[in-house]
């Protein structure tokens, strides 16, 4: 709370200087504010025909489009033949001289500084206490590429980049309707990051929109470098291992979510876009699902759900069965586990914990290290941790199998990676104390928890997602309705639901 107050006062309520009519004073004022920042370029201009007309342009080196600045702004200012009798010089400059796409006149010092730091140029004219803000933004952006984390087999291969305007363009190209509303907001007292809320008028639920805006207004933070800053601040369940706000880097996914009545939150400087409300089943949906044949997509989705159950349960159930309920084991399996566990020094639970942690370390290493070391990592992982550990009797082979199963199935749903690890360890702890009872209690607890948490007022486990798009992906001619309660206009299609 106190942080909010300090930053707010620093920026807004400072004793702001006021522009004077004297150009040299104004230049000094602005240079004084950007003291010790050598990227600020001050370009002093005198008109060639009338040297009494003096201007000055401020901009930050590297953030402006130099060609545009030189040819469309500086050159006309230098060469324009002004009428000597002219009285309203600044308006003439704004309207008749500069070739910039947008020109704003302002005397607000705060706005002037904001314009300069965001790549616009500020033009001061001698004798006027107003400044012209010229849109000269131009900096290098990353090319549009397919997001690494959300590759698809079929479908568009474009992903967001770090520029919010480019991102909005990509979205706009997919949703060519005036109903697509984009509301800008500024986040971060120090970063002053531009962000925006997108929704489709008439489809998105206004209550959820109002709730989102309320939450966005409530917090204040000095910097937002990624949407996750915001996501954590507006999350209804900040302690939940399962996220209740979705995120994606794909324009087609965002467009799809908007069409379902969800709301998207863009932030400048990050390719990640938040979508909300976010239901639990959305973790298992992939944009592929909608681009591939629905049989194939449904199998894929069922596999992901099964993989989730397997990855959280496999270690816990293995420990429960081999350490508590030997009766369940078929005799031949029991014999081979006994044989494998001979002369392994650690209890099964400890083995399981160690190997799971080892797997997580390997995975994290894989994320962090440069990609050309990948090969040696897999050799170390597979040989040293797997084969050699079994041969050295440090761990038993069945545990490696279970850990590998849990690990691989965990990678099926990378979006709830963190939640999976936590749930898996909790279930393992419970089942190492109480056996299958512990596991069942744990699963019951998990279910109760999941059924209790909400995302922007919508229970995440509720079948509010249209049933045709839950565990399986129905063919499009069967998905007539949008998710209930989320969307205002509930009908997606007016056809009779039968394929021609």
């Amino acid at each position, binding site marked *: 709370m106190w942080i909010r107050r300090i930053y707010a006062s620093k920026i807004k309520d400072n004793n702001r200087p006021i522009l004077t009519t004297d150009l040299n004073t104004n230049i000094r004022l602005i240079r004084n504010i950007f003291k010790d920042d050598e990227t600020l370029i001050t370009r002093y201009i005198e008109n060639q025909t009338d040297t009494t007309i003096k201007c000055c342009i401020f901009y930050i080196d590297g953030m402006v489009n130099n060609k545009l600045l030189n040819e469309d702004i500086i050159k006309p200012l230098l060469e324009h033949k002004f009428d000597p009798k002219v009285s309203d010089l600044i308006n003439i400059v704004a309207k008749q001289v500069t070739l910039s796409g947008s020109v704003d006149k302002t005397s607000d010092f705060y706005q002037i500084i904001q314009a300069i730091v965001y790549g616009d140029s500020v033009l001061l004219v001698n004798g006027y206490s107003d400044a012209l803000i010229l849109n000269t933004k131009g900096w290098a952006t990353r090319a549009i590429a397919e997001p690494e984390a959300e590759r698809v087999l079929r479908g568009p291969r474009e992903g967001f980049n770090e520029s919010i305007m480019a991102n909005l363009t990509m979205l706009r190209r997919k949703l060519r309707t005036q109903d697509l509303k984009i509301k800008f907001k500024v986040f971060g007292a120090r970063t002053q990051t531009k962000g925006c809320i997108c929704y489709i008028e008439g489809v998105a639920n206004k209550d959820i929109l109002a709730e989102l805006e309320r939450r966005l207004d409530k917090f204040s933070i000095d910097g937002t470098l990624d949407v996750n800053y915001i996501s954590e601040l507006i999350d209804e369940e900040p302690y939940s291992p399962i996220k209740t706000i979705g995120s994606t880097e794909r324009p087609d996914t965002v467009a799809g979510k908007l069409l379902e009545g969800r709301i998207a939150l863009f932030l400048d400087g990050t390719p990640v876009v938040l979508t909300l409300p976010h239901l639990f089943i959305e973790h298992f949906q992939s944009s592929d699902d909608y681009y591939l044949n629905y049989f194939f997509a449904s199998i894929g989705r069922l596999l992901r759900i099964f993989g989730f159950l397997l990855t959280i349960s496999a270690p816990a159930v293995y420990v429960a069965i081999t350490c508590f309920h030997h009766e369940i084991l078929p005799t031949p399996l029991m014999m081979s586990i006994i044989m494998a566990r*001979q002369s392994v020094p650690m209890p099964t639970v400890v083995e399981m914990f160690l190997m799971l942690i080892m797997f997580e370390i390997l995975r994290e290493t894989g994320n962090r290290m440069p990609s050309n070391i990948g090969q040696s990592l897999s050799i170390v992982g597979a040989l040293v941790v797997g084969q050699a550990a079994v041969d050295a009797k440090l761990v038993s082979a069945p545990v490696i199998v279970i850990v590998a199963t849990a690990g691989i199935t965990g990678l099926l749903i990378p979006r709830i990676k963190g939640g999976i690890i936590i749930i898996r360890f909790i279930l393992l702890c419970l089942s190492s104390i109480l056996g*299958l009872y512990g596991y069942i209690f744990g699963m019951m607890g998990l279910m109760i928890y999941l059924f209790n948490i909400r995302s922007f007022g919508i229970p995440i486990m509720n079948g509010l997602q249209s049933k045709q798009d839950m565990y399986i992906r129905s063919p499009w001619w069967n998905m007539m309705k949008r998710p209930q309660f989320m969307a205002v206009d509930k009908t997606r299609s007016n056809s009779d639901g039968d394929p021609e």
Partner: protein
Amino acid sequence: MTGCANYRELETLAVVTGTAFDKGSDGTGYHLTFEILGQSGGDGTQGPTVKSQLIESDGNTIFDAVRNALKRSDKKLYYGDCKTVIISNELAHEGIAPVLDWLNRDSEPRITINLFISKEKTAKEVIEQKSLNDPITSYALSNIDKNNPKFLSKTASVQLYQANNMLGDEGISLILPALDIANNQNDKITELGGTAVFKKDKLLGYLGSDESKYLVFIKNQVTSGLLIINMESASPDISLEIIDSKTKVTPILTGKLPEMKIEIKTQVALSEMQTSADLDTESGIKKIEEKASATIEANIKQLITKVQREYDSDIFGFGSAIYKNDSDYWKKIKPQWDSLFQSLNIEVSAEMEIINTGLLKSKTKVGG
């Protein structure tokens, strides 16, 4: 809680696969032989293999003997995977209810344990024999018993809970499959050897393998197996494979004394014909069917008469059939049931239907 709240590593357990119950050497108490999973080898690239180990143990009671095994075994005995229990002849003569009591009462042994009676002197010698394929004799015996109703039907297979039912129910006596030792090549091997007949919980004697088959017939437990009949010569020459069989035992309670009607309906396949007689016509098939029916009827009558005379033990469950039919009537005759059973009049009618003759239509051709 329910016997599963304690953490136990698998390798700290000695998994009992089978147990042989004998009388203690000095005539009191029990002498138990446990077959447990052991391991051999396991060096270099080859993993360890399973082998059978025996632990012998004495005790005043069964549980005492079970616990006394821990004097020799470094691992606690685990009974959850015990599949076979063999009870010695001698113990069974004295009564098997005390033996079954511990198995029923303890939480670990399952109620699906296969029970056997050893026809040999002790049960230990039966469990000691090596089996053909399975390194664990107990599991081999359990598998033999599993296959028995599928392909052989030469004795009833009895699991612990079924034995409990037969012991506890009225109007039916306990039977258990018997084991004996036979020669196989140069080795000795355990084999199924007919049925042990009990009265209450005491062993009376045994029925041979072929007699046991008709016992299984009467008990309506035939699902497979062969019927061997002789058409012409004195030696059997036709094998019929049973495909489906149903037996209905109906008590007739109208007369002064109760009577039993046994109706058997069997579908068979003609699967072997050694006779030279020309039987490949419709009437020939009919003849075989009639002969087979007659053989079954005769054998069943013979078996019942033998049991009535020698054992006087209602192993067929006739009393139980009466009880199910008319419980009041059963209550009246229950005190005299032993004598009534001995003189019970039985009517047997078997109906045989040959539904196919295998891949051959007539007998195998011999040219020249």
